[in-house]
């Protein structure tokens, strides 16, 4: 403090050490300022921020250089959400006392957290905008904005008050009461807040309680101090534990043992069953997986076995087709050999060879070639079988005769050969002499059917016809007597040899050794190829 007259720093006394002027008034002014600061400090300490602001403003009216009062005023502004006003006070304070000033700390705190400052600035703008909405009648918009404001800046008392006023206008008194209680928690002696609350209490007939939360907070504080009970007895503060604790060594060991037992019980009854259950589940899962894998492998094995069977069938089919193809190729080879024999004039060999072929083995041009060859050599084949059969017949070998004559008959199904009728007839006789009467009857019947004009030659030998029966050829000139002779026919055959050949010495115009067969009816002789001799 300096003298108002000479600007000399003042001492404790009421006179200026420089000019000797009476500075008691100046000092009184400063004391008043300090007194108001003290009052403001007391009010601020009990959250009477409105009262504190009033006192501090008065203090600064008396002494603008009261730095503590100005800093505290800024702090009160900051606490009520008036951040810009607080910042103004702190800046002025810093200009009045650039060094060793607490305002530096406050300003740094604000400037270091620019997001916080921006948020507060936005809430102030929204608050101003809400006032504009209210004055324009857009109260819904104002409510929306004010809700955002109190959410972002919960210390802005004016926003609580304005929002409460809007709720009160819409007669939503409970919401207004809650907001005003929050405002009172920030500044508990704000006249506007208290006035609104009084109005609400009058309208609702219910008082507003502030003590519940404070009492709860006090209880929590007491419990948070390690379960101790504090009270003041005279000038002494007594701290008493709320529970009695026995801290002897035995009790410690007992507690440890009990803890161990309790831990073991927890492990045994809670952890072990869950672990066992998890192990069982894991095992079951593994078994299930193994079964599923086994089933899938079995299915795959079955599929592979089916594929093997399919391929085996295909292989067998391919082998069969290959064999068929080889057989067909052999047949074709044999057919070509037959054709070669036929072309080279060896009809006898061709006839033998073509008889060994199967016509079903050929198709297309080969089939046509086979049919042509068959047609060409069938006559020779018939003659061959016929000659062999009659030769055996003459020799008394009736079985061979029957076999060869059967082949002759079978080789000419169209009965094209002129000797077919004889072959059929002698076939019947051969079977007859062998004793196979069924086949003999069959052959005779066919003969009678095919040649009805000559039926009388054989009908006598059919079983059950009432004829002679017995051995064919044993009755001399009967129809069953077959003889091969040069000119005359005589039924002189005995039972051991049915066909007797008589030499004709009168007119042997051919070599008798060439006679293969003599027609029993006409007496004509034929060679082994069916050619007429003589």
């Amino acid at each position: 403090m300096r003298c108002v007259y000479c600007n000399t720093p003042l001492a404790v006394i009421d006179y200026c050490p420089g000019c000797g002027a009476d500075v008691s008034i100046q000092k009184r002014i400063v004391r008043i300022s300090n007194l108001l600061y003290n009052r403001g400090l007391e009010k601020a300490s009990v959250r009477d921020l409105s009262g504190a602001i009033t006192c501090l403003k008065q203090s600064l009216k008396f002494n603008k250089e009261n730095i503590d009062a100005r800093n505290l005023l800024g702090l009160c502004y900051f606490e009520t959400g008036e951040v810009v006003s607080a910042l103004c006070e702190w800046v002025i304070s810093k200009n009045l006392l650039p060094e060793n000033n607490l305002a530096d700390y406050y300003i740094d705190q604000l400037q270091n957290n620019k997001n916080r400052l921006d948020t507060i600035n936005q809430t102030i703008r929204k608050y101003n905008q809400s006032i504009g909405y209210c004055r324009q009648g857009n109260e819904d918009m104002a409510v929306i904005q004010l809700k955002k404001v109190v959410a972002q800046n919960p210390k802005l008392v004016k926003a609580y008050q304005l929002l409460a006023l809007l709720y009160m206008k819409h007669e939503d008194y409970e919401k207004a009461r809650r907001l005003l209680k929050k405002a009172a928690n920030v500044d508990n002696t704000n006249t506007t807040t208290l006035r609104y609350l009084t109005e609400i209490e009058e309208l609702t007939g219910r008082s507003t309680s502030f003590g519940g939360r404070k009492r709860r907070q006090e209880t929590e504080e007491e419990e948070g101090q390690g379960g101790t009970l504090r009270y003041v007895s005279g000038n002494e503060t007594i701290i008493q534990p709320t529970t009695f604790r026995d801290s002897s060594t035995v009790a410690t060991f007992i507690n440890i043992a009990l803890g161990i037992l309790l831990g073991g019980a927890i492990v045994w009854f809670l952890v072990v069953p869950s672990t066992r259950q998890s192990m069982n589940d894991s095992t079951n899962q593994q078994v299930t997986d193994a079964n599923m894998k086994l089933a899938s492998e079995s299915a795959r094995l079955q599929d592979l076995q089916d594929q093997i069977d399919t391929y085996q069938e295909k292989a067998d089919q391919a082998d069969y087709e290959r064999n068929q193809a080889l057989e067909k190729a052999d047949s074709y080879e044999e057919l070509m050999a037959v054709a070669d024999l036929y072309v080279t004039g060896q009809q006898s060999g061709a006839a033998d060879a073509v008889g060994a072929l199967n016509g079903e083995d050929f198709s297309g041009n080969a089939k046509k070639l086979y049919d042509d060859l068959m047609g060409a050599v069938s006559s020779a084949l018939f003659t061959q079988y016929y000659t062999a059969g009659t030769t055996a017949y003459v020799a008394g070998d009736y079985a061979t005769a029957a076999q060869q004559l059967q082949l002759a008959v079978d080789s000419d199904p169209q009965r094209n050969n002129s000797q077919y009728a004889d072959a059929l007839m002698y076939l019947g006789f051969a079977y007859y002499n062998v004793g196979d009467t069924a086949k003999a009857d069959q052959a005779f019947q066919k003969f009678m059917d095919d040649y009805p004009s000559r039926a009388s030659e054989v009908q006598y030998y059919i079983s059950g016809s009432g004829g002679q029966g017995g051995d064919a050829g044993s009755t001399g000139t009967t129809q069953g007597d077959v003889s091969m002779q040069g000119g005359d026919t005589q039924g002189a055959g005995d039972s051991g040899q049915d066909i007797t050949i008589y030499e004709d010495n009168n007119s042997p115009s051919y070599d008798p050794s060439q006679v293969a067969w003599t027609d029993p009816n006409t007496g004509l002789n034929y060679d082994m190829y069916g050619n007429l001799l003589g």
Partner: protein
Amino acid sequence: MINYEEELKKFHPSMDVNEAEDAIYSRDLTDVTDILKEMLQDEKKKKK
């Protein structure tokens, strides 16, 4: 009974950060000591 319109008139826009500088410069920082000094100077002038 609270009159909404009258109460609304009591609410004034707050200063935002951009207005802080102007507010600081326009602040009247005159205190009682300044008034005392001015009175003493006026008294001196009257004596002269």
